[in-house]
């Protein structure tokens, strides 16, 4: 085992625990920055889309994984972000500003959803958010003021420094930057009082209140932040599909986001990214597998959903801590070789309230 000899509080406060980790993350950053130059354009844009999903997943992780509030309607925030982005660009607002607007607008709506949701938790909150997303989807589909009267709202393709955002490489770097930014901001929050207040609300709202955490304000803040990050993801999503329709942000997308955080591992930002990567790779893998499956199975329209369902059941049953938990176990195995025991992680198998669906 690697024990850290602590000599100052900063060692606990810093984002990375070991000096070597800086090297690993620098290598990862270098790889991600260099990758678009080495792989075909198609893969670049696929990868960029995984980043966009990961942004949404990080946003939902703050809400579901850390604050313990389940949202089955997170696609609605992506939808709001996407439409705000499109309208802002069409109105001539320059790109980074429009992105910020998309985030702010989604965040504001997040507060509006958060307020009535304050008294709800678990299954009831899941249903309320589901209803919310259905309402938002219909509003944007049918209200001409929001959809500009077009069934497919075209999204302008702005340029930053001469590079068109819609083109593979520009999109890739913007998505990567926004993802890195949202991860960093989330991690910062989680090592500060507000992030701890989120965790407190998740594990024991009553104790949180007696310790001075204002329930309503903190829940609304969690909703707002999560929605704002979702809005950023939505704005980038808009550029990916380039002509917007409310149908693209249906319940399936919400479920996909929720699956990312569950499969990734509730209560871990790393898990949110791992879950997004996993699901981002799953769709191409399913499409690929269709070539080898008997036609009667491959032709089923529900094949993708069935695979999603199976994977979710598998994770809930066998690895409730998700990919992040698996990662931690593998790390512990190698760091502690040969003393790793299955029971080392046994005790932590209690379920979090966000999983328990009170």
């Amino acid at each position: 085992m690697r024990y850290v000899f602590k000599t100052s509080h900063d060692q606990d406060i810093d984002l990375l625990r070991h000096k070597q980790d800086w090297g690993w993350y620098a290598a990862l950053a270098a790889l991600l920055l260099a990758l678009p130059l080495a792989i075909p354009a198609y893969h670049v844009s696929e990868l960029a889309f995984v980043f966009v999903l990961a942004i949404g997943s990080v946003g939902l992780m703050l809400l579901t994984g850390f604050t313990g509030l389940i949202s089955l309607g997170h696609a609605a925030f992506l939808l709001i972000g996407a439409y705000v982005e499109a309208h802002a660009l069409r109105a001539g607002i320059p790109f980074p500003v429009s992105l910020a607007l998309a985030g702010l607008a989604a965040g504001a709506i997040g507060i509006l959803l958060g307020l009535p949701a304050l008294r709800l938790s678990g299954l009831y909150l899941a249903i309320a958010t589901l209803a919310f997303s259905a309402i938002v989807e219909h509003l944007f589909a049918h209200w001409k003021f929001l959809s500009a009267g077009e069934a497919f709202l075209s999204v302008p393709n702005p340029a930053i420094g001469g590079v068109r955002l819609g083109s593979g490489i520009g999109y890739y770097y913007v998505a990567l930057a926004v993802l890195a930014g949202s991860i960093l901001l989330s991690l910062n929050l989680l090592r500060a009082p507000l992030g701890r207040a989120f965790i407190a609300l998740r594990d024991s709202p009553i104790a949180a209140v007696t310790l001075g955490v204002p329930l309503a304000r903190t829940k609304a803040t969690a909703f707002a932040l999560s929605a704002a990050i979702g809005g950023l993801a939505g704005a980038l999503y808009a550029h990916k599909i380039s002509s917007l329709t409310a149908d693209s942000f249906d319940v399936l997308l919400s479920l996909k986001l929720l699956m990312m955080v569950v499969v990734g591992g509730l209560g871990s930002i790393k898990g949110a990214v791992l879950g997004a990567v996993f699901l981002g790779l799953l769709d191409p893998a399913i499409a690929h597998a269709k070539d080898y499956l008997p036609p009667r199975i491959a032709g089923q329209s529900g094949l993708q959903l069935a695979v999603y369902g199976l994977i979710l059941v598998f994770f809930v049953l066998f690895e409730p801590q998700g990919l992040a938990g698996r990662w931690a176990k593998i790390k512990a195995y190698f760091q502690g070789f040969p003393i790793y025991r299955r029971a080392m992680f046994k005790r932590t198998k209690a379920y979090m309230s966000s999983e328990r669906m009170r």
Partner: protein
Amino acid sequence: MSLLRVDDLSLWFGGVRAVDGVSFDVEPGEVFTIIGPNGAGKTTVINLLSRLLSPRAGRVSFDGQNLLSVPPHGVIGRGIARTFQNLELFEHATVMQNLLLGRHTHRATGFVSEMLFLPHVRAAERAHREKVEAVIDFLDLHRHRDSMVAGLPYGVRKNVELGRALASEPRLLLLDEPAAGLNPEETEDLAFWIEDMVADLGVTILMVEHDLALVNEVSDRVLVMNQGQAIARGTPAEVQRDPAVIEAYLGA
């Protein structure tokens, strides 16, 4: 002047008078204990004082100010911290994070600066950790500092909860059955800590407890409750001789 003044406090749930016109004062620097048979309304009094419940009638003033106008999350800001009978810890967080949450009431940073983790946020974090470290020293929690609460033994969890309350630097500490579930050795430790908290940290303690040995050892004054009413008060020795108390406990 009394630190806490409770006057004619009443709360009833339907036809059940959980707390029925209870009055008492807690002086600064004392250990004031409420005892009584099960269902006497002791925990309800604690819940009323921490504002998790609102009374139907009565007045509560803390340090000369009306406590009943304070929202539940504002109570700790006035200097009243509490522990719970059945532990309300943040299970999926480390001991350190739990104790740091005890410092939440002293949070002085805004959420934008926290997201950017500006230098003053780091400085504030360091200061909080410094205070928490003192609590860890006091309660001997070093070994468990970075452990997840979920896996810890009961006695340690009980200490973590006490530490969390203490980290807020309270003036009045409400302890709801602090010795419940502890072994004799841990109870002995608790007795020392209670005395130290009063003597060294200047904390006033209002506790509910069933362990009469502990009550005798640390309490300055005792209030006995039965069926929502205060039936006796005085020093531990006095109340144990009180015929009303003997009747309540033994049903003689």
